């Protein structure tokens, strides 16, 4: 039992490391060069924090989100914005997990994805966190409340695009496995 747990932890660590590199690379080298309608920059790197196992310690979640944000920051040339926004998501993610997920989901330490849970549980979690992230990000980036509604429009459109992208990636890249437990 104990060795199984350790194995799962090791697997989590390796998988997390792989996810980190792949998602960061995808964000930096593909999505940062892509501006939809000149306005919307999809930010898939949030997905890395969203799909961390539900029992990840809070401090680890915070540090990982800061590191992820900082990595994207360094390569996108505007240092600090992504880190600030994603660290905020790292703070409030446990709260949203406890709001949206059932107690059984939290206890089994699963990775939030369509494969593990129903879309109706997964979608509100993704949408709310992505919206909050974009809200913080664009607020910091624009730093001006004079054009509030234009900013809000950008936030909403970017949220829709990022959410769609996360759903697509989730659907194609996370393997559907048979649930044993």
């Amino acid at each position: 039992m104990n060795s199984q747990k350790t194995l799962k932890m090791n697997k989590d660590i390796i998988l997390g490391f792989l996810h980190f590199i792949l998602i960061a690379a995808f964000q930096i080298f593909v999505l940062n060069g892509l501006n939809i309608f000149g306005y919307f920059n999809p930010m898939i790197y949030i997905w890395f924090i969203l799909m961390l196992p539900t029992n990840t310690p809070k401090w680890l979640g915070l540090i990982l989100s800061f590191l992820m944000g900082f990595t994207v920051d360094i390569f996108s040339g505007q240092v600090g914005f992504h880190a600030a926004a994603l660290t905020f998501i790292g703070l409030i993610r446990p709260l949203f997990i406890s709001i949206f997920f059932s107690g059984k989901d939290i206890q089994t330490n699963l990775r939030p994805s369509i494969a593990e849970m129903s879309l109706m549980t997964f979608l509100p979690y993704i949408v709310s966190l992505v919206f909050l992230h974009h809200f913080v990000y664009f607020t910091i980036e624009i730093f001006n409340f004079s054009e509030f509604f234009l900013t809000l429009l950008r936030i909403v459109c970017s949220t829709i695009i990022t959410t769609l992208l996360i759903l697509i990636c989730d659907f194609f890249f996370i393997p559907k496995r048979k649930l044993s437990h």
Partner: protein
Amino acid sequence: MFVFKIYYGKTNTFFIYHKISYYFCTTKFVFMRNLIRFLKRYSYIFLFIFLEGLSIYIISQNSFYQGSAITSFANEIAGNVNTKIYNITRYFTLGSSNEALVKENARLRSMIESSYVKYQHKTFQYNDTIYKQQFEYIDAKVIQKTINKRNNYFILNKGRIHGVTNNMGVISPNGIVGVVVNVSSNFSLVMSVLHQDSRPNIKNQRTKISGTLIWEGGDYSSGKLVDIPSSIPLKIGDTIITSGFSQDFPEGIMVGKIKNFKKDKGTGFYVVDIKFSVDYNKLEYVYIVKNFFKEEQVELTKDIKNE
């Protein structure tokens, strides 16, 4: 022996641990224990604050706009707080600063001259050799003025005791100003050219054709010329000067420049808009023109009038 050692070690550690927790559980250290528990439980919040602060610090260091906005926000808060503190603390130094001010006042009061009456007045004379006419200029300062009414006046700080009389012309370094219409012993009232009844005689510097300057109200920077015959062509930008035909002004005082003009078909005269060379809003120092031969000239024309 080996078994005992392990057993002993285990007991010992357990005992020590028990002792420490007991130590912290006593009522004396209840606060301490709660604090530690609190810090342990919410340590991730401090971590969050640290990381978020780090991000914002990086932003403020690297992005100019956000950095300056954060700095100015901080400055505004600091400035407000400093002002409030200063408003409170300055009452404590009020006594000593009052004393210093009273001393300063006494010193300055002994130095000023405006409390004394001035008996000597400077006058400036020059001889106009061409016309053999002598003008005297009295310098004066505008102490009150209007420019935005239909009929505008100036009040100057020179009066009868300085030699000012009615119907003297007033000019400024930039050009014509008006005519003295009323004199008291220390002050004089000047009807400016921005007045219904002001009709100084002027001429075009280039063509020497003379006319009359009037002002129809409104914009204080532009006036109108009438009585200029339309037979002689004008140009936009022509300089208008005083003609010297009236006794109030010497010849050649600047009036303004032609802005635009049109022919009045009914009368055969031009209607000309000019821009004054003097900004009457900024007018401060002027000269009162004293014509020594004025009475002689008036005497000459008196018979014509009486006819």
